[in-house]
C-alpha cells in the first residue's frame, strides 16, 4: 500500500515542492536577455556622451523607453531567480536562508520598480 496521495502521484514531484518552472523561467529570461543585453551594450556604444540632455533625448525615443523597460523587467526577474538559487545552495541555516530570500526579493522588486518608474518619468517628459 502506498501512502502517497493520488494527487501527489499524478504531479510526480516526489518530495520536491515544484517542478521545472524555475528552470524554464531562468532559460526563457536568459534567451530574452541575450538580445536585450546586447541592445543595451550597443546603446551605450551609440551614445556620444553621457550628459543629461544626450541621455534624456535618447531615452525619450519610444524604442529606447520600451526596450529599457523590457530590459529592467527581464534582468530583474533573471537576477532574482539566479540569486535565489545561490542562496538556496549555500545558505543552510534556515532562519538566515529565509531572511536572505525575503531581502533579495524586496531588493529586486525595488530595483525594477525604481528603474521602470524612472524610465516612464523621463519618457513622458515630466522632468524639469
Amino acid at each position: 500500500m502506498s501512502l502517497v496521495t493520488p494527487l501527489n502521484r499524478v504531479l510526480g514531484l516526489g518530495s520536491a515542492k515544484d517542478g521545472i518552472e524555475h528552470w524554464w523561467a531562468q532559460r526563457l529570461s536568459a534567451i530574452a536577455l541575450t538580445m536585450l543585453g546586447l541592445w543595451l551594450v550597443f546603446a551605450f556604444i551609440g551614445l556620444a556622451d553621457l550628459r543629461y540632455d544626450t541621455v534624456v533625448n535618447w531615452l525619450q525615443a519610444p524604442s529606447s523607453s520600451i526596450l529599457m523597460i523590457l530590459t529592467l523587467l527581464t534582468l530583474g526577474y533573471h537576477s532574482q531567480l539566479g540569486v535565489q538559487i545561490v542562496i538556496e545552495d549555500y545558505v543552510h541555516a534556515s532562519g538566515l536562508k529565509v531572511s536572505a530570500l525575503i531581502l533579495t526579493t524586496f531588493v529586486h522588486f525595488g530595483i525594477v520598480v525604481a528603474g521602470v518608474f524612472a524610465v516612464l518619468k523621463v519618457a513622458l517628459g515630466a522632468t524639469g
Partner: protein
Amino acid sequence: MDRVERPLSPHLQVYRPQITSILSILHRLTGLALSVGALVLAYWLVVLATGPVAYAQAAAILSSVWLKICYAGWSFCFFYHLANGVRHLFWDVGWGFEPSQIQTSGWFVLVVASMATTVFSVSVIL
C-alpha cells in the same frame, strides 16, 4: 547526542582545478556581480528622472576612477555571463557535450568575453 563534525562532500580540496569547474564557478560569481550592477543601473535611471541638477551631482560620483574600474569589471562579467550563458543554452538542447567540445567552447567563451570587454572598455568607459 554530540554531532561528529565529519567532512562534507564535495571535497573541493582534492580536485585539480579544471576549466569546466573554474568556468562554472565564474558563471555564478559574474551573475552575482551583475545583480549588484543592476543597482547602479537603477540608481543612474532614478537620478536621470530626478532632474539635471541631481544628475550632474551623481555624474561626478559615477564617473570617478574607481567606478570606471568597476564598469570595466562589470563589462567583463556581462560579456562572460552572456557568452557562457549561450554555451549553457546549447547544452540544454544537447549540443556540445563531448569533453573536447566542452574544453573548446570554454576557451572560446573566455576569448570572446576578453575581446568584447577590451573593445567596450576602450570605446565607452575610457
